[in-house]
C-alpha cells in the first residue's frame, strides 16, 4: 500500500511538473499574472508529493518490506538501521528519487525565497526547473521505478553492497546531489535570462548565492567520497582519477569558474554572456556525469546497473537540454551587450584568466575521461587513461591559477598597478622562497613536491597579505584590527577562507602524493617491522561478529624509541549476505601525517598481509576542504544576499530594439 502511494505521488508530481514547465512560460510571455504565479504553487506541490514518495520509499526500507523489488535488491533485515536509511540512495532507483527530491527542494526554495525576483523572471526560472524535473520524473517512472513489487515476496533481501555500509558514504550522495542539482538553479536562471533577453548585475546577484550553495555542497560531497576511498579501500590513496571521480570534479571546476565570473557580472556588469554560458555548461557537465555514471559505461562501485534503456534515455535528455540551451544561447546571447569596460591588468582581467584556466583544466579532465570511451566506440580498442595523464596535464594547467589566486584579490577593479601589487606581495614572495629553500635543505625532493608546496605557501601568504591589509593589521591597534575583521564583508571573509583552504588542500595533496611511504609484508603474531621511524608489532589477531558481518581484527602496537605511542585495530570484515570482504583501515593522525594500517588476506604459512603507510600531510586535505566549505557558507551569509531587494537596473530588455542599439 505504502509503495503504491509512493508511486502515485511520483505520478502526481509529474503532472504538476508538466504544469510548472508550461503555463508559467505562457504567463510570462502573455504577461498574465495568475498563470505566472501558478509556478509557485506547482513548485510547492511538487515538493510535497516528491517528499511523500521519498518518505514512502524510506518507510519500505526501514520496515524491510521485501515485496518491493528495490528493497529486496538492496537491503537486508539484519542491516543496522542507519544503513536501511542510506540504502535508499545506495542504488540507482532510490538515488534518482533523491535527485528529483533535491530538485523539488531547490524549486520550493526559489519560490519561497525569490519573493524579490521580478515575477516574470521567477516564473521562467521555475518553469525551466519544472521542465528539468519533468524529464527526470519521466525517466524515473518509465525506466527506474523504485516501487515495483515482487510476487511472492522473498523472505529476506540481497543486502546493500558492503562497501557502501559506511558512515562516510551515507552522506556522500546527498551532498553531491545537492551540488549537482544546485547547478540546475544557475542553469534555469541562465535560460530564463536568455528568454527575457536581459542580464544585469542584479541577475548575477541572484545567481551567485545559489551557485555558492551548490559549490559548497559539491566540495563537501566530493571530499567525503575521497575520504571514504582513503579509509575504506585500504590503498592509502585519496584520489584515483577514476572516471567517476572526474565526473563529479568537472562540474566542480565549472561551478568554481562560475562563482568567479558571476562576481564580475555583478560588480562590473561585464562577462555576462560568458557567465550565462558557464551556468549552462556547469549543469550540462552535471548531467553528463550522471549519464556516464548511471549508464554503466564506466566500471565502478557507482555503476549500480548497466541498463541500456536508461543510458539511451539520459543521453537523449542530455542532448535536448544541452542542445536546447546552447541553441537558445547562440540565438539570444549576441544581443546582450556588456557595459562594464576594463583593462587587461585588473581584477576583472585576473578573473578572466582564472576562468580560462579553470575551463581549460576542465577540458583536460574531460578529454582524459572521454577518450577511452570515444576510442572504444570508434575502433574497438580499449585503453585506460591513468593518473599520470592527469598529473602531467591538469596539474600543470592549474599551477598558474594558484600563482594568480594570491595576486588577483589584491588587484583593483578596472585597472590595476602591477608594480604596486608586486610590492605588496614581497613578504609573501619571501615566505614562499624561504619555504622552498627549507624544503630543499630538509627533504631534498622530489622537485615536483617542493614546487607544489612552495606554490601552496605562496597562496596562503598571499591570502594572509590581502586579509591583513583589509583589517589594517599592525597599522592600527590590534583591537581595532579585530573590529575590522568582525565587520568585513562576509563575501571577502569567505574568499579568504576558501583560498586559504585551497592552499592547505594542495599542500596536503602534494605531500601525500610525493612522500608517502608504503610497506607491505606478511606478518605473524609477535613480529615487528619498522616504517618511517616507528616500530609496528602485530601483537594479536582476533575474530568476532558484528551486526551483519564477521570481523578479523588485528592489534598493532606502534612504538617510537621503545615507547608505545598508540595501538591500532585494523579490520577485515566479511559480510554474511553478499559474502564479500571490506577493509577497515586504522588510522592515527598527528595532523602532520597519518599512520595508516590495513590488514589483508592470511598467508598459507600462518601470517597475515599487513599494509603500513606513512602518509605525510594527508589530514590537510580534509582540513583544507573543510575550510573551503566554511568559506563558501560564510560568503553565503553576506548581508547583500539577505537585506533588501537587489535593485534591477533600469536598462531595457532587448525586446526594445532601439534601446539595445543605443547601448552598443
Amino acid at each position: 500500500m505504502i509503495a503504491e502511494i509512493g508511486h502515485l505521488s511520483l505520478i502526481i508530481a509529474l503532472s504538476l511538473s508538466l504544469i510548472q514547465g508550461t503555463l508559467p512560460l505562457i504567463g510570462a510571455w502573455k504577461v498574465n499574472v495568475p498563470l505566472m504565479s501558478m509556478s509557485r504553487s506547482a513548485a510547492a506541490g511538487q515538493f510535497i508529493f516528491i517528499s511523500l514518495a521519498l518518505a514512502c520509499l524510506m518507510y519500505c526500507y526501514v520496515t524491510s518490506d521485501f515485496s518491493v523489488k528495490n528493497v529486496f535488491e538492496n537491503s537486508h533485515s539484519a542491516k543496522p538501521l542507519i544503513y536501511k536509511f542510506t540504502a535508499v540512495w545506495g542504488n540507482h532507483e532510490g538515488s534518482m528519487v533523491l535527485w528529483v527530491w533535491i530538485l523539488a527542494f531547490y524549486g520550493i526554495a526559489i519560490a519561497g525565497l525569490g519573493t524579490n525576483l521580478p515575477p516574470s523572471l521567477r516564473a521562467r526560472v521555475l518553469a525551466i526547473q519544472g521542465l528539468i524535473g519533468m524529464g527526470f520524473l519521466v525517466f524515473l517512472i518509465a525506466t527506474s521505478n523504485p516501487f515495483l513489487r515482487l510476487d511472492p515476496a522473498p523472505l529476506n533481501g540481497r543486502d546493500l553492497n558492503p562497501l557502501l555500509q559506511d558512515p562516510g558514504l551515507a552522506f556522500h550522495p546527498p551532498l553531491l546531489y545537492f551540488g549537482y542539482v544546485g547547478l540546475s538553479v544557475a542553469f534555469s536562471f541562465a535560460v530564463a535570462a536568455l528568454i527575457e533577453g536581459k542580464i544585469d548585475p542584479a541577475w548575477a546577484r541572484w545567481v551567485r548565492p545559489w551557485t555558492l550553495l551548490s559549490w559548497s555542497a559539491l566540495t563537501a560531497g566530493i571530499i567525503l567520497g575521497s575520504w571514504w576511498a582513503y579509509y575504506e579501500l585500504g590503498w592509502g590513496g585519496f584520489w584515483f582519477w577514476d572516471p567517476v571521480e572526474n565526473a563529479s570534479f568537472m562540474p566542480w571546476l565549472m561551478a568554481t569558474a562560475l562563482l568567479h565570473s558571476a562576481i564580475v557580472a555583478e560588480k562590473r556588469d561585464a562577462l555576462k554572456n560568458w557567465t550565462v554560458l558557464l551556468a549552462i555548461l556547469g549543469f550540462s557537465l552535471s548531467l553528463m556525469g550522471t549519464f556516464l555514471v548511471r549508464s554503466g559505461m564506466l566500471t565502478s562501485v557507482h555503476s549500480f546497473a548497466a541498463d541500456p534503456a536508461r543510458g539511451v534515455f539520459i543521453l537523449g535528455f542530455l542532448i535536448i537540454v544541452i542542445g536546447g540551451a546552447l541553441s537558445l544561447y547562440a540565438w539570444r546571447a549576441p544581443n546582450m551587450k556588456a557595459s562594464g569596460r576594463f583593462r587587461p591588468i585588473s581584477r576583472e582581467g585576473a578573473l578572466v584568466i582564472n576562468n580560462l584556466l579553470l575551463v581549460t583544466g576542465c577540458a583536460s579532465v574531460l578529454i582524459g575521461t572521454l577518450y577511452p570511451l570515444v576510442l572504444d566506440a570508434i575502433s574497438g580498442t580499449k585503453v585506460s587513461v591513468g593518473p599520470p595523464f592527469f598529473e602531467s596535464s591538469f596539474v600543470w594547467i592549474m599551477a598558474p591559477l594558484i600563482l594568480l589566486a594570491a595576486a588577483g584579490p589584491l588587484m583593483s577593479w578596472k585597472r590595476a598597478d602591477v608594480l604596486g601589487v608586486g610590492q605588496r606581495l614581497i613578504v609573501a614572495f619571501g615566505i614562499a622562497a624561504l619555504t622552498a629553500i627549507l624544503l630543499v635543505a630538509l627533504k631534498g625532493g622530489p622537485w615536483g613536491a617542493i614546487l607544489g608546496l612552495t606554490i601552496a605557501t605562496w597562496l596562503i601568504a598571499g591570502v594572509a597579505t590581502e586579509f591583513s591589509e583589509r583589517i589594517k593589521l599592525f597599522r592600527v591597534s590590534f583591537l581595532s584590527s579585530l573590529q575590522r575583521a568582525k565587520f568585513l564583508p562576509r563575501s571577502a571573509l569567505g574568499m579568504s577562507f576558501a583560498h586559504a583552504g585551497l592552499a592547505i588542500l594542495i599542500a596536503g595533496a602534494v605531500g601525500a602524493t610525493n612522500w608517502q611511504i608504503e610497506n607491505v609484508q606478511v606478518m605473524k603474531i609477535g613480529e615487528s617491522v619498522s616504517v618511517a621511524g616507528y616500530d609496528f608489532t602485530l601483537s594479536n589477531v582476533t575474530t568476532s561478529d558484528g551486526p551483519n558481518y564477521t570481523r578479523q581484527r588485528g592489534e598493532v602496537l606502534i612504538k617510537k624509541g621503545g615507547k608505545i605511542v598508540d595501538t591500532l585495530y585494523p579490520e577485515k570484515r566479511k559480510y554474511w549476505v553478499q559474502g564479500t570482504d571490506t577493509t577497515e583501515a586504522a588510522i592515527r593522525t598527528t595532523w602532520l601525517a597519518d599512520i595508516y594500517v590495513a590488514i589483508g588476506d592470511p598467508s598459507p604459512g600462518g601470517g597475515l598481509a599487513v599494509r603500513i603507510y606513512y602518509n605525510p600531510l594527508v589530514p590537510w586535505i580534509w582540513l583544507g576542504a573543510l575550510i573551503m566549505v566554511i568559506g563558501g557558507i560564510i560568503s553565503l551569509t553576506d548581508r547583500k544576499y539577505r537585506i533588501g531587494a537587489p535593485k534591477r537596473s533600469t536598462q531595457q530588455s532587448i525586446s526594445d530594439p532601439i534601446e539595445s542599439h543605443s547601448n552598443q
Partner: protein
Amino acid sequence: MKRKHKRMLFIGLGISGLGIAAALILLAFDDNLVFFFSPSQIHAQNFSSDQRLRIGGLVEEDSVIREDNSLIVHFNITDLSETVAVTYNGVLPDLFEEGQGVVAEGHMKNDSFYALEILAKHDENYMPTEVADALKESGKWQGSETKK
C-alpha cells in the same frame, strides 16, 4: 586600449592557453595510455616486457595459489577459451574472488603476466565492461553473469 584590441588580446590569450593545454594533453597521452587485451588477444601476439598493458577476464576457479610467508600470489585469468598465468606481489583487493571478473595491469614476460596492480573495484554483481566484452568475443558470454 580599444574594445576591439582588448577582445583580440583575450582571444589571443585564450588560444595560446588552449594551445599550451593541448600540447600538455598530447604529451601526457603519449606516455600514459595503457591498452587492454583479453587472454585470447594476449596469446595471438607478442609483447615486449617493457610495454605496460592491462588484461582482463575471470579469475579461473581453483587457480589461486599463495606462496608461504610472502605476498606473492599466482592465478589464471581466463576468457573461457584461453588463459594467462598471472603473478602478483601484493595485497589483493577486497572484491577479488575466484570466478569473478578482474582486470590486471602490468607486463608480459616469458608467457606469463606480472601484475603491478589488480583492479576489482566493481561490485560482485557487476562485470567490468572490458571483461564482459572479452567474454563476448571468446563466445563464452552468458547473460546471466550480470545479474542486475
